[in-house]
């Protein structure tokens, strides 16, 4: 009697275990399935439109053919501007947190705030830059777009810089100090060099993050139908053009939007894979 009850209990536990295992496998397939579906859709709809004209011609008016040259150049310029502004600030702040004030109250506060900025809604960043730059200047501009993206770059770089500098062994700093190097030199010549791969990864991740950002650009850089490299004027960017073209009723605009989406996705995936392999290769000495 007891024996039978025990077998029944044992069976039900085993069954539950099997069900859980199957469910977890199903969940994993479910998660991976979306990645496959999205990438497949992008290739299916975007690959056909991929041609030389996409990279050499301007965005067309509805009903005619054209390319994505001005938004591609615009995106590149905005990204470079954002990295140029955001990286130095991010690296310096990360340096303070890891080197000078590792046990400061300021550091823990900055770390907490930085982590919140890291996942703050990007549209709010757009509103912020609109308030402090676009409204006082009186017009939309590529400069404002670049600064908005820089605000997104800073927390990413701060985080990776701090993490990577913390990993640098203290014996290196002690050796540098013992031969008489001042603190700043020990940091810039020794610690930065030791943490270089990780810090480059941080910048790459930041670039991957901003190259698809749309929300902060909508009301800072706005958009531009024409060729423009003037940072003081509205500037086209790939994500914003995709947004505009995809929601338009014109089939050729929609197909250009798909092609643009494919380009962005490939660029972002390439960047994050590179960043990952950099980290992986620096971990193996």
């Amino acid at each position, binding site marked *: 009697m007891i024996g039978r009850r025990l077998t029944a209990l044992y069976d039900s536990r085993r069954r539950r275990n099997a069900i859980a295992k199957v469910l977890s496998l199903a969940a994993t397939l479910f998660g991976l399935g979306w990645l496959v579906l999205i990438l497949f859709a992008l290739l299916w709809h975007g690959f056909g439109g991929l041609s030389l004209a996409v990279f050499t011609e301007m965005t067309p008016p509805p009903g005619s053919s054209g390319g994505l040259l001005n938004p591609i150049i615009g995106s590149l310029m905005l990204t470079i501007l954002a990295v140029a502004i955001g990286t130095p600030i991010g690296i310096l702040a990360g340096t303070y947190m890891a080197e000078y004030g590792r046990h400061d109250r300021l550091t823990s506060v900055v770390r907490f705030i930085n982590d919140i900025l890291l996942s703050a809604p*990007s549209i709010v960043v757009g509103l912020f830059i609109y308030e402090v730059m676009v409204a006082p200047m009186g017009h939309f501009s590529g400069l404002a777009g670049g600064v908005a993206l820089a605000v997104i770059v800073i927390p990413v770089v701060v985080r990776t810089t701090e993490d990577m500098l913390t990993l640098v062994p203290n014996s290196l700093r002690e050796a540098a100090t013992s031969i008489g190097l001042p603190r700043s030199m020990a940091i810039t010549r020794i610690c930065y060099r030791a943490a270089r791969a990780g810090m480059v990864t941080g910048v790459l991740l930041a670039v991957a993050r901003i190259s698809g950002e*749309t929300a902060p650009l909508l009301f800072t850089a706005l958009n531009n139908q024409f060729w423009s490299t003037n940072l003081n004027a509205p500037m086209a960017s790939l994500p914003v053009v995709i947004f505009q073209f995809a929601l338009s009723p014109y089939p050729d605009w929609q197909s250009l939007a798909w092609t643009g989406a494919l380009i962005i996705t490939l660029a972002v995936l390439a960047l994050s894979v590179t960043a990952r392999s950099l980290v992986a290769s620096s971990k193996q000495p």
Partner: protein
Amino acid sequence: MEPTQRRSVVDVALQEGVIASVEAVTRAKVLDRLRLSDATFRHMTRAAAFGVLLLLGGVIVALIEGSLLALRTFGVGFLTTDRWNPVTEKFGALAPIYGTVVTSFIAMLIAVPVGLMIAFFLTELCPQWLRRPIGIAIELLAGIPSIIYGIWGLFIFAPFLQGTLQPFLIKTVGAAPVIGPLFTGPPYGIGMLTAGLILAIMVLPFVTSISRDVFEAVPAVLKEAAYGVGCTTWEVVRYVVLPYARVGVIGGVMLGLGRALGETMAVTFVIGNAHKVSASLLAPSTTISATIANEFTEAVGDLYTSSLIALGLILFVITFIVLAVARYMLLRIERRIG
């Protein structure tokens, strides 16, 4: 000869003294310069660290300043009315807040169990060589820009739901007594349900990767002990791993929730931008971020712009609280493990 010789010795001695003092001066100069550059560098890093704080302060001040006009005009009523009429300039935030909360809730309802199950698979069941590739693939899902989810959702996912899941839900669950009203109305394809499902896919990687990390941090001794007394894999995860990692998992879930609340582009494409509070999940609605994205550049008049910025302020306050709680939880588990 002698005096000259002596003099020359004195000269040499004097000369050496001069050289030594010159050297000392230059050395002091170089040291001063080094000290100066050292201090400059130190102050620059400190200023940059303060800059991060200023950034957050700046965001808050700018949003409050921008929304002052709307908040003064409508008062607390801004939060509780669902009118949104640019013509008569009557604005209320209820509909966007409702849409934001409902879509995020749908997203978490799906992403949390699925994410936990994937973390379970990755830490306990998956063969070692497959762990890294699957982990990377899930994280790539997080790397895809939100605008891509938007265009995919609009052209592929929404029509698919319109043809399959939505008519099915209306036919079967729509007639049920309590939850029935959630699934009524015509299947538009776009709407809160679609937005929620897409958000679920976007949030999934965050929940998964953080749960996986905290699952992996559970001491092996605990798991081995549980296996030793005869627990099944599922029982080990359910009664040992999950309770131990609870705080971290909650942190990860809150982090994902923060993302879902603030997500803009993907939602803007598929939500339908309708300012109304409807019971049916299939109805088009709007969220805070989608409203701002859709209307900000076309907003005419100070009150309209200010109302949109006030929406942004509400969103920022909500996500700030959620993210702060998330970070606090993750900090707690880090301290325990570290």
